C-alpha cells in the first residue's frame, strides 16, 4: 500500500512536471501515470465515502468513460455528504470553530486533494479523449471547466467560489487541471477568501439555507447544460442572494481585474500567441470561443456588441470565401442549378402580358349593360369593307348589238373611212343611243313622280315628237284639274271608245256567239294571208302556164 501510495504520488508529481502539450499526443506512458495517479487519489478518498462499492479504482483495460464513471460513482455520494456536513456546520457554527482546530492546510489539502482528484480525473479524461477524438487542450480545459462547474454547482458556495477559481484556472488552460499553484490560484489568497466567506455564512445563515436549496436544485438541473452563462448567472444570482447588498453590488460589479489583476488585452494576446503555436485553425476558433466565454464572464454591453459584430464579420467572410449560391450568380442555365430549384425561389421578372381579367358578376353586368346600350343606340363596330382603289380606269366594255344592223356593210366601211380621215365626225355609238333612250324614259318617269308629290313641281318637258293623236279635242282649253289626273279621265266615254252595238264580256258570250266570233276571225286571217301571197299565187299560175 505504501508503495502504491508512493507510486501514486510519484505519478502525480510526474504529471505535474510534464510538458503540457505532450498531453495532446497519445502517449501510453503518460496514460499509465495518469491512471496510477487517479488510482492513488481514489484510494486516498476511499475512507471518506463509506458507501462506495468500489474499494479500488479499476484502471487496467478500462475505458476512459468507465474510469470516469467509477470516479463519479465515488464522488457523487462524497459530494452530497460534504454538502450535508456544510449544512450541518451552517446550523452549528460552533462546530466550524471546532473544525478550525484542525489545521486549515489539512482541510485545504483535503479540498485540494479533492480538487486534484477531480482535476486528475479530468486529466485522464483529457488524455483518453485525446485518444478517442481530436480535441484541443483548450477544449479539454473547457470540459474541465464545465465539469468543474457541474460539480461545483452541487457544492456549497465555498466550493463554488473555489470552482470559480477553478474555472479561471481551467480557462487558463495551461495547468490542464493539473497545476494547483498558479499565478491565478494562490493558496494564500484562497485561504483568505475562504475566511471571508465563512464570516458571510455566519451572518446570513437563514437566507442561505432557504435560497441555496432552490439554487442547488436549479443547478442540479443545469448540470447537464454546458451553458456557462446560465451557471454564471446562477452564480451571480447566488452571490446576490448570499451577500449583503454591498457585497452583492461588489460581486455584481466584479470584474476580471479583481481576480487576476492583469489586463485582458495582455492576457488574451499571450494566450493567443501560445494557442496559435499549438493548435490548428479549428483550435483557434475554439480559442476564440473560449476567449468569448472568458470575456463574457466580465463583459460589458459594448464588448458584447463588439463580439456580436465580430462573429457576424467572421460569418460573412466565411460566406464570401465559399462559392455563391446559384441565385446570386449571373446567368444560370438549368444544368447549373439543382433540379426544380427555380420553383422554390421567388423569381421576379417582367410580365409583358396584361394579366387575364377576373370575371366577376359586376364585370359581366357591366358588359351586358354596354351591349344593351349599344343595341338601343344602334352603334356597332361593324367591319367596314375597305374601298378598293381603282388601279386603272375601267375599260370601256363594248356592248354587242344583237339586232340586225340598219346600215349596210358599205355604209359601215364608209363611216369607218370617214372616221379615220376626220376623227371629229364620230357617229352616235350604240351605247350613246341607249343612253339617250334611258334618259328620255327617266324624264318621263320623273315628271309623273313629281306630279304625284306636287311638292317639287316641274313643268312638263317639251319633247319634240311628231305623233298623230287621235283623241285630241279640236279646242284645248286649260284644265284646272291637277296634273295627276290623266287625260283618259278628262275625256268623255265616247271619246275614249267608239264602238258599236252591244259589247259583251268574254264570259257573257254564248256558244254560238263564240263560234261566230271565231269564224269571223278565220275569215279575216284568210283574207290577209291571201292578200300577202296574192302575187305568189299569180306567179305560180304564170309559171305553170
Amino acid at each position: 500500500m505504501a508503495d502504491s501510495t508512493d507510486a501514486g504520488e510519484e505519478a502525480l508529481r510526474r504529471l505535474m512536471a510534464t510538458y503540457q502539450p505532450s498531453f495532446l499526443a497519445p502517449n501510453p506512458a503518460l496514460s499509465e501515470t495518469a491512471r496510477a495517479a487517479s488510482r492513488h487519489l481514489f484510494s486516498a478518498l476511499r475512507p471518506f465515502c463509506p458507501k462506495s462499492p468500489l474499494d479500488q479504482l479499476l484502471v487496467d483495460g478500462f475505458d476512459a468513460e468507465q474510469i470516469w464513471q467509477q470516479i463519479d460513482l465515488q464522488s457523487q455520494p462524497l459530494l452530497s455528504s460534504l454538502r450535508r456536513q456544510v449544512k450541518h456546520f451552517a446550523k452549528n457554527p460552533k462546530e466550524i470553530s471546532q473544525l478550525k482546530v484542525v489545521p486549515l492546510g489539512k482541510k485545504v489539502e483535503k479540498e485540494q486533494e479533492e480538487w486534484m482528484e477531480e482535476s486528475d480525473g479530468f486529466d485522464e479524461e483529457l488524455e483518453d479523449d485525446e485518444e478517442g477524438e481530436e480535441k484541443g487542450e483548450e477544449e479539454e480545459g473547457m470540459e474541465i471547466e464545465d465539469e468543474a462547474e457541474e460539480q461545483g454547482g452541487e457544492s456549497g458556495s465555498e466550493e463554488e467560489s473555489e470552482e470559480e477559481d477553478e474555472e479561471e484556472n481551467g480557462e487558463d488552460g495551461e495547468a490542464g487541471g493539473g497545476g494547483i499553484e498558479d499565478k491565478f490560484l494562490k493558496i494564500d489568497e484562497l485561504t483568505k477568501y475562504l475566511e471571508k466567506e465563512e464570516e458571510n455564512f455566519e451572518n446570513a445563515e437563514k437566507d442561505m439555507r432557504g435560497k441555496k436549496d432552490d439554487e442547488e436544485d436549479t443547478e442540479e438541473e443545469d448540470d447537464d447544460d454546458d451553458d456557462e452563462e446560465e451557471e454564471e448567472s446562477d452564480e451571480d444570482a447566488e452571490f446576490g442572494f448570499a451577500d449583503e447588498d454591498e457585497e452583492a453590488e461588489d460581486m455584481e460589479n466584479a470584474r476580471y481585474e479583481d481576480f487576476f489583476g492583469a489586463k485582458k488585452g495582455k492576457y488574451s494576446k499571450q494566450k493567443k500567441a501560445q494557442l496559435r503555436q499549438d493548435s490548428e485553425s479549428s483550435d483557434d476558433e475554439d480559442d476564440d470561443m473560449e476567449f468569448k466565454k472568458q470575456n463574457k464572464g466580465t463583459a460589458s454591453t459594448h464588448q458584447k456588441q463588439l463580439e456580436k459584430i465580430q462573429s457576424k464579420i467572421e460569418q460573412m467572410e466565411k460566406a464570401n470565401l465559399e462559392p455563391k449560391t446559384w441565385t446570386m450568380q449571373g446567368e444560370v442555365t438549368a444544368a447549373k442549378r439543382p433540379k426544380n430549384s427555380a420553383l422554390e425561389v421567388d423569381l421576379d421578372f417582367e410580365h409583358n402580358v396584361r394579366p387575364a381579367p377576373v370575371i366577376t358578376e359586376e364585370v359581366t353586368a357591366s358588359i351586358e349593360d354596354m351591349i344593351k346600350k349599344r343595341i338601343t343606340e344602334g352603334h356597332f363596330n361593324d367591319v367596314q369593307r375597305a374601298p378598293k382603289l381603282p388601279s386603272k380606269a375601267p375599260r370601256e366594255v363594248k356592248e354587242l348589238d344583237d339586232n340586225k344592223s340598219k346600215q349596210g356593210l358599205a355604209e359601215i366601211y364608209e363611216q369607218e373611212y370617214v372616221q379615220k380621215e376626220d376623227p371629229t365626225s364620230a357617229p352616235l355609238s350604240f351605247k350613246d343611243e341607249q343612253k339617250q333612250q334611258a334618259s328620255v324614259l327617266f324624264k318621263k318617269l320623273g315628271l309623273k313622280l313629281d306630279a304625284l308629290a306636287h311638292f317639287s313641281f316641274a313643268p312638263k318637258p317639251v319633247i319634240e315628237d311628231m305623233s298623230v293623236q287621235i283623241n285630241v279635242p279640236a279646242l284645248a282649253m286649260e284644265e284646272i284639274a291637277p296634273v295627276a289626273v290623266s287625260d283618259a279621265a278628262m275625256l268623255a266615254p265616247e271619246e275614249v271608245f267608239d264602238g258599236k252595238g252591244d259589247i259583251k264580256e268574254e264570259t257573257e258570250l254564248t256558244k254560238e256567239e263564240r263560234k261566230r266570233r271565231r269564224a269571223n276571225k278565220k275569215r279575216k286571217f284568210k283574207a290577209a294571208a291571201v292578200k300577202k301571197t296574192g302575187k305568189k299565187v299569180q306567179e305560180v299560175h304564170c309559171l305553170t302556164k
Partner: protein
Amino acid sequence: MQSNMPLSSMEVEAAPSEAKLLPPKPKFEPLKAHEMSDGQVQFRKVSVPQHRYNPLKKAWMDIYTPIYEQMKIDIRMNLKARKVELKTRPDTPDISNLQKCADFVHAFMMGFDIIDAIALLRMDELYVESFEIKDVKTLRGDHLSRAIGRLSGKGGKTKFAIENATKTRIVIADTKIHILGSFANIKIARDSLCSLIMGSPAGKVYSKLRAVTARLAERF
C-alpha cells in the same frame, strides 16, 4: 480628154455614142378591157339558184343600175339559161370592174343583201368566204339542226352580234355558211362560227368577240 471640160458635155459626148444602141423607154397606157385578149369581149356568167330567182326579179334594178352606170359593164339576165351575163364595154375603164361586178352578182346569189353586196363594188379588199358545217365537224340529224340553231341564235341575234362586232355579213344557207367582209374580219367571224359549231355556248363566243374587237379597235 481635157479635165476642164464640164460633166454635161462629157455626158453629151458619151450619149450620142450610145444613143443609137438603146431606144427611149416606151410609155404604154394600160390596156382597156376591150383591148385585152386581142380585142375580144370579156364575159362573166353567174348562175341563179332557184330560191334567188324572185329576189333577183325584185332587186333587178338595184343591181343593174350601179353595174351599168358606175362600173360600165353590160349586164343581162338569160332567162333560158337562168344566168346573169356580164360583158365589158368599150368604155370600161378597168378590167377589174368586170370581176367586181361578177363578184357582186355572185354574192347576191349567195344570199347577201344588195346594200351589203354593193360594198364589194366599192371596196377592193372585201372577200366572200364559204364553208360548210361538215368541214368543221361531222354532224348528223338533230345535232346538225341544233348546230344551225346555235349559229343563228334566237331571232338571229347571235348571227347579228357576230356581224356587228366583226363588220361582216353572214349568210347561213342550210349547211353552207358564207361570210362577206375584209380578210381579218372574216377570220374572226369564222373562228366564232366554228366555235359555235363545235358546241361552245353563245355567251362564251360573245365574250371572246368582245375581247377581240376591243383589241382590233385599239389598234386603230
